[in-house]
């Protein structure tokens, strides 16, 4: 006996929820503008080496005869206090800042998701312990804490000297310390999500059928808390970029000559009266990047909210 195919209701084809969400997001104008700005920003930053070879410039080449040059055909935004091309340094600096933003957020997410899922899934003592720990983390003043973490002597932690003295250590140190302090929002969001999911009937059914914790978390919990994680992570990237630039500005972040937007501003601070524009460009780029991440996060929040789904 053959079962006749059911007619699709009202002529609607079934659509993936992601297509629905995308169509809501597309109507959120600030988020769409932000997305475009971010793509352009990434292209701008990551075309640095192509631009350098095309213009025949070197990011760290100093020329004391060409200090504070005004914008010209070779140096589109002029040169800085030791004759380096400002535009090229902005591009390379952006690469570093964006990479730190994404990496530190990814690591922070890993910590936050672990803490949140464990707290929400295990409940009871484990939950109250983990959430108290999260509260403690929130009570610590972020920037002073990061300043201390950035100044810590890695040798005292027992790391071998070849790692402590390697040039990329300041980059990785910033990534790690920021992710160590900035996971609390994600942990709370994930815990709240896990709590709701873990008490749904279908999850209970899966549990009585003998589903083990790793399976339950992987199949039922994580996919259902994915959307709030995406929203929180987007907002976190913006905050991480701000924190990184603050630390580099205070002189405890990524060390020169590697440019970042933050340490370019550190240089510009002393030159505020001679070359104010050097202080304007990097700050403007940080501002633009962070505000677009914030608008995008806000748009995603609206798009992922089932109450705002209009078909």
């Amino acid at each position, binding site marked *: 006996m053959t079962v006749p195919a059911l007619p699709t209701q009202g002529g609607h084809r079934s659509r993936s929820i992601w297509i629905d969400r995308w169509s809501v997001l597309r109507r959120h104008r600030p988020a769409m503008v932000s997305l475009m700005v971010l793509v352009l920003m990434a292209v701008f930053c990551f075309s640095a080496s192509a631009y350098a070879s095309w213009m025949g410039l070197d990011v760290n080449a100093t020329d004391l005869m060409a200090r504070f040059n005004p914008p010209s055909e070779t140096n589109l935004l002029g040169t800085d206090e030791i004759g380096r091309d400002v535009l090229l340094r902005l591009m390379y600096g952006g690469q570093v800042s964006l990479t730190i933003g994404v990496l530190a957020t990814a690591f922070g997410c890993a910590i936050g998701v672990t803490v949140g899922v464990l707290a929400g899934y295990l409940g009871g003592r484990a939950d109250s312990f983990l959430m*108290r720990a999260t*509260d*403690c983390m*929130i*009570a*610590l*003043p*972020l*920037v*002073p*804490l990061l*300043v*201390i*973490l950035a*100044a*810590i*002597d890695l*040798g*005292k*932690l027992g790391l071998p000297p070849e790692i402590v003295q390697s040039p990329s250590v300041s980059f990785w140190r910033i990534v790690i310390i920021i992710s160590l302090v900035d996971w609390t929002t994600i942990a709370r969001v994930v815990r709240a999500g896990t709590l709701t999911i873990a008490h749904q009937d279908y999850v209970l059914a899966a549990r009585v059928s003998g589903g083990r914790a790793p399976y339950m978390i992987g199949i039922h919990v994580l996919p259902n808390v994915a959307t709030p994680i995406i929203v929180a992570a987007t907002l976190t990237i*913006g905050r991480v970029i*701000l924190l990184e*630039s*603050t630390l580099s*500005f*205070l002189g405890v972040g990524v060390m020169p000559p590697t440019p970042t937007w*933050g340490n370019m*501003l550190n240089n*510009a*601070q002393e030159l*505020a*009266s001679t070359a*104010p524009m050097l*202080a*304007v460009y990097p*700050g403007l780029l*940080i*501002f633009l990047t*962070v*505000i677009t991440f*914030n*608008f995008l996060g*806000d748009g995603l929040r609206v798009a992922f909210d089932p109450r705002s789904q209009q078909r």
Partner: protein
Amino acid sequence: MGRYSLRRIAEAALVALIMSFLLYNLISLLPGDPVDLMLEGNPSVTPELVAQMRALYGDNQPLVQRYWHWLGNLASGDLGYSSSQFKPVMEVLGPALLQTSKLMIWTFVISILTSIVLGSLAAFKPGGWIDNVISFFAFACVSSPAYWVALLFLIVFSVKLQWFPATATAIDPDMGLLKQMSYFVLPILTLTLFSVGQYVRYVRASMIETLASDYIRTARAKGLSRITIVRRHALRNALVPVVTLMALSFGSLMSGALVVETMFGVQGMGKAIYDAVMMKDFNVAMIGMLFATLVTLFASLVADLAYGWLDPRISLK
């Protein structure tokens, strides 16, 4: 209520103790150690002398013991000695606390009032042009690096226009009050922008929710003006959830204070902590950090207890 408060206070005290231990561990990981720093550049140092000094300062004992010793001193009112400024920690951080409190209290008052007004205005008509302008302003505030705003203010108002002095290090108590205040205008303005951005969004979200409730519709049906509705009916209810968020933001205000104080040369707590870390002044860094943490813990405790007072429906168990 009484039992809940007591339990909450005991809990906060325990947390404070644990935090102080963690901070002590963290600070001891800073480069160098106190004895080396003290004997630095002294040509007549012998290994025996170093060993004696270490024994004297208890530097050769395990960390937990040193922590107990430090805690005992703290309990008896001895905060230790600043190795960079050669005076007791109390005399370093006392005046710093005064400067920071001036900065914080002004900032807190101005930004709460501003954000209540702006947040309520935005909530009248969500999505309207007033809301869009205010929301964009709030986003811009939380997205701009505080030090960059400070730098731009310095370039524009201190260097170009010369309206306000650039650095507060020149402050002395003999100046007139007005003159002293002029040093604080730019730091307060920067710090206010930084916190208004957050608060406006809290107030707006909470106010939109409150204005959608039935009793507000009743009030509107009675023909009350929008101002009266907000002031008499909505404000108190809308502020309940905002209070906790504001209390918790004390820590982030402290973060902002570090940056702003360093930029404008205000000799406050934030700058004291930053300088102490840079100069490897362990005692000052420790007490400064601990104090900043305790203030946030205390603020969130007060917010928790104030909840019951602001909203009688919340029964505290």
